[in-house]
């Protein structure tokens, strides 16, 4: 199956200024594939470099960042994929952001302009994304304004938000309403790829389920969804595929159900062990600073365990794991391709 979005050995690093000059390795050789109709959950502790991937994909990294690798946005059947890391800003702004790759932000309330109503901003986004890139905006007539209003209402209904709430200012929405409002923006152009960056952070369980349900529905409609979360229980609910990240590297990937049922990497086991149903056993120690990563395996420097010191993933069938040979079932051979 063609990937809607593919990350090939994507590395991101930041040069910090001031008297404490350092290089922060935010992502190292990350390879992922997002497929239409599937949700890939990227899990890991806060600060491991998950969110920086969305900024890299959308070309929103700050000036002190450097990237390496490739981010391929799948084209239609007859067109070549678009390599986003080397795309000019005009192409990203005019053809990619919002139109082909949409972002569902973490803190929806702070992602909306505070002095304008949600409807005003949504109508502007819908009108902007409906126009071909580079064309000038013309003042909409009465019929166009009415159509725009109906389109906004329809988007709100699709996202599970009462259309009347669109007329509110961002601070007048609850966390759940704001999250659904943010979802309406991501739906504005029917982008085939959705990047959901911690969309359930700070929400209670019913709202988490509601948000995840909305993402599942969008995936079922054919979109490729990247769900970035530190909540492994949320990933468990909706993800088709799972990638586990630790200290800027992927340590395990594979089908979500199988990875969660039978984790191969010690870190994945540690994350599962920290769930309430498994006794809330925390992983000992602290994650390393990304500006001072240890030379060998970052996780087994923190928690001693069986490790061959190789940080790269090794693939076995549709799963991949770092640090040690996997308990490979008979008949499954090691592969070169390590993308999820």
């Amino acid at each position, binding site marked *: 199956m063609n990937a809607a979005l593919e990350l090939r050995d994507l590395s991101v690093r930041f040069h910090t200024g001031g008297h404490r000059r350092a290089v922060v390795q935010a992502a190292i050789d990350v390879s992922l594939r997002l497929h239409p109709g599937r949700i890939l959950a990227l899990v890991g502790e806060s600060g491991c470099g998950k969110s920086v991937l969305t900024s890299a994909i*959308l070309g*929103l990294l700050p000036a002190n960042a450097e990237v390496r690798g490739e981010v391929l946005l799948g084209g239609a059947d007859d067109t070549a994929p678009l390599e986003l890391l080397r795309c000019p800003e005009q192409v990203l*702004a*005019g053809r*990619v*952001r*919002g*139109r082909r790759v*949409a*972002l569902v*932000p973490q*803190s929806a309330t*702070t*992602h*909306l*302009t*505070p*002095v*304008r109503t949600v409807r005003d901003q949504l109508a*502007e*986004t819908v009108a*902007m*994304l409906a126009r071909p890139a580079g064309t000038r905006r013309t003042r909409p007539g009465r019929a166009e304004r009415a159509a725009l209003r109906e389109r906004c209402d329809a988007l709100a209904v699709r996202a599970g938000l009462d259309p009347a709430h669109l007329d509110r*200012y961002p*601070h*007048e929405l609850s966390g759940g309403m704001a999250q659904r409002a943010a979802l309406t*923006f991501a739906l*504005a*152009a029917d982008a085939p790829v959705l990047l959901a960056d911690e969309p359930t952070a700070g929400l209670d369980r019913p709202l988490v389920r509601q948000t995840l349900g909305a993402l599942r529905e969008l995936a079922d409609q054919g979109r490729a969804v990247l769900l970035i979360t530190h909540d492994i229980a949320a990933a468990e609910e909706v993800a088709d595929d799972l990638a586990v990240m630790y200290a800027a590297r992927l340590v395990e990937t594979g089908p979500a159900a199988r990875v969660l049922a039978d984790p191969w990497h010690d870190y994945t086991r540690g994350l599962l062990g920290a769930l309430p149903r498994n006794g809330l056993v925390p992983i000992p120690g602290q994650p390393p600073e990304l500006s001072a990563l240890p030379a060998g395996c970052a996780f087994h420097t923190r928690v001693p365990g069986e490790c061959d010191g190789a940080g790269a993933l090794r693939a076995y069938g549709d799963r991949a794991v770092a640090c040690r040979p996997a308990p490979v079932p008979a008949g499954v051979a090691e592969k070169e391709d390590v993308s999820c």
Partner: protein
Amino acid sequence: MAERTLHAPAAAPVPAGDGGWISAARPRAGMPRGPRRPGWTRPALGITLLVLLVSYALLTPWLAGLDERLTDHGRALLAPGAGGWFGTDSAGRDLFVRTAAGLRVSLLVAAVCAVVSTVIGTLVGAFSGIAGGWVDQLVMRLIDTVNSVPHLLLGIVIVALYGGGLTAVIVAIALTHWSSVARIVRAEVLSLRDREFIDAAVAGGASRWRVTRRHLLPAVVPQAALATVLMLPHAVWHETALSFLGLGLPPHTASLGILLDEAREAVMLGAWWPLVFPSAALVVATLAVATCGAALRDRLVPRRRTELSL
């Protein structure tokens, strides 16, 4: 010895209102007064005062049918009552009409100056904040240079170059006061441009120009509008100062500054009214505009508007 408690004394119980509802408002830490009550009292007071002043300034010379420049030395320095509501000045001119005419000129100068300086300041400040880097540094040093010279001194030089008159006064005040607005707008832009809603707008496909126009500048408007309103009394005071020094408007033209300048001699002769009424007009105009400015700020920021239930 009475035992000292580490805790704040318990607040007085809040009386129950309708249906058992009680106010949840509490005095905030470090705020000596109670919470600000939402309502229209203060804004209404400010707006009423401003409307009355503007009506007085615009309508009085027309309704009275008197030329404020008309002298009648036989009626010089008549006290309020015999010489009309505000009395007469040392040239026998009716001070009620002349104060209104002076207020009209001063408010006109102030309004034009406030708008011009706000437009210049907003454009320069927004450009500087958005451009950043060496452009920002260059603009800031330019503003520092403008601010390093006393505004009144700079105003005097400009008025001297233009040879006095209404236009010269407006130019002098506008050109010396845009810098403070620019600083305010630049600071606001700098604080806003790294906010998440700007990143979200970019991630949603908005161009840099659209982000600036539709997301950044609307968020700056409350501060810029407040700066405009607060500039009004400031400009009145500057116009008054320039005219008082004899550098502003021609002596026969009524303005608050000229009226106060003329009042100096009258006060020496024991006549208080030529000083009190123009001064009162100046003070009331300042207070009215400041009150309206505070109300405008509350209404332009949606979060504050909600908090105050406006």
